[in-house]
């Protein structure tokens, strides 16, 4: 079946099967920042934004995204123009193996877009969607708070 949705602000017409997950479709399209970590929505590294809210792409059917706006990590920054969150994560030492980093940054972006100056508890709640085994979440939380307090 054919569905129409936007990915990183680009309108796309996609040929998909009803049982395909959004995760599979995005990776096949080359959005490799979306990662595989589990199959039941418990680890979070497959996270993308749907209409600005963080969701697990591995437990969403691609067809459920029809008519919606998907944002992946590839859509929020480049080497020449990184997103402030990407800059902050790098500067704060918040990237270790990096496997959960795109998901964390998207989760943080969803929060900051809605609430530009959250407190630590709200930042932690936003990041709780993503499991990390490397950082203990400390430096990622610091990175997000830096952006939040920097008036971005």
């Amino acid at each position, binding site marked *: 079946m054919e569905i129409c949705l936007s990915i990183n602000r680009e309108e796309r017409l996609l040929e998909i099967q009803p049982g395909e997950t959004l995760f599979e479709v995005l990776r096949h399209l080359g959005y490799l920042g979306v990662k595989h970590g589990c199959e039941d929505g418990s680890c979070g590294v497959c996270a993308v934004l749907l209409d600005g809210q*963080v969701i697990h792409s591995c437990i969403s059917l691609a067809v459920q995204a029809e008519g919606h706006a998907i944002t992946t990590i590839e859509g929020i920054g480049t080497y020449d123009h990184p997103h402030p969150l990407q800059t902050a994560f790098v500067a704060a030492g918040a990237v270790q193996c990096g496997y959960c980093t795109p998901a964390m940054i998207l*989760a943080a972006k969803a929060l900051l877009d809605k609430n530009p100056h959250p407190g630590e508890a709200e930042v932690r709640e936003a990041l709780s969607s993503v499991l990390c085994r490397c950082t203990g979440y400390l430096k990622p939380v610091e990175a997000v708070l830096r952006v939040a307090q920097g008036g971005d």
Partner: protein
Amino acid sequence: MWSSVQEYHRPKSIQSALRLIGRVQPHTVLLAGGTWLVAMHDPSIQAVVDLRDLDLVFIKNNSQRLRLGAMTTIQTLVEHPLVQKVGGGLLAKASQHSAQLSTRNVATLGGTLAVGDSTSEVLLALLALDAQVVIHSPIWRETALDALLSDHPAHLSPQVLIKEVYIPTLPAESGGALAEVRPTPRDHPIVNAAALVVRKGRVCRIARIALGGIAPHPIRLREIEAMFFYQPFDTNLLSDAAEAVSDTMNYPDDSRASAAYRRAMVAIMVTRALQEAWEMAIKE
């Protein structure tokens, strides 16, 4: 890929949805948020019916009840001002405790009900709030939430269409609270309880108590609730209630916890939830 699913429907009317899930072949189920259903990849399911275009996302209140559409997301229950007022914030708080943000953004009230998870904080809160459910099974009817859950020891069939849940309006001097035993602050609860009290002076007019982690679904303790009907709320009443709770039930024994531990915890959780609900009712 969920390869067995060959058909996806998004009907515009409830009749169409009912007709689709009423078919014998192919095996068709309802799709709400999908956080539970899609994760299962059940190979016997061949068609899904997405409920999103059926106008089931709403929160409306009148003087008698607060109506929640079945496709309302759990995160909406956390944030919506009308929901935050209910039971001293019991339902909003329970919703926030129930899952991570990313799951709450997608999981729905109806889906949560259909799964009926034994320690679901959302269901505990709704039970304590005396929620009623409007469903189509096999015809349109209204039923109390605890009756619906106890009628279905397994998950509610994914072919039963839930339209809405409503909560009777509470008087002002009421308070609600949730008490949980969790190995870590965000690990699944082993045992949990929700309580709601309505007071008049120092007397408890109504108490409602719901318990999770003991039965396949959360249950309401109506016999224990009866002990509180128009009684002065004091420590004697609480300890009588705790003892009665301990004696009443069979407690499961599994790798998470033993029966003896669950029995002991139930008494403590019920006591704490009632105590906290009462303290909140006093503040109101």
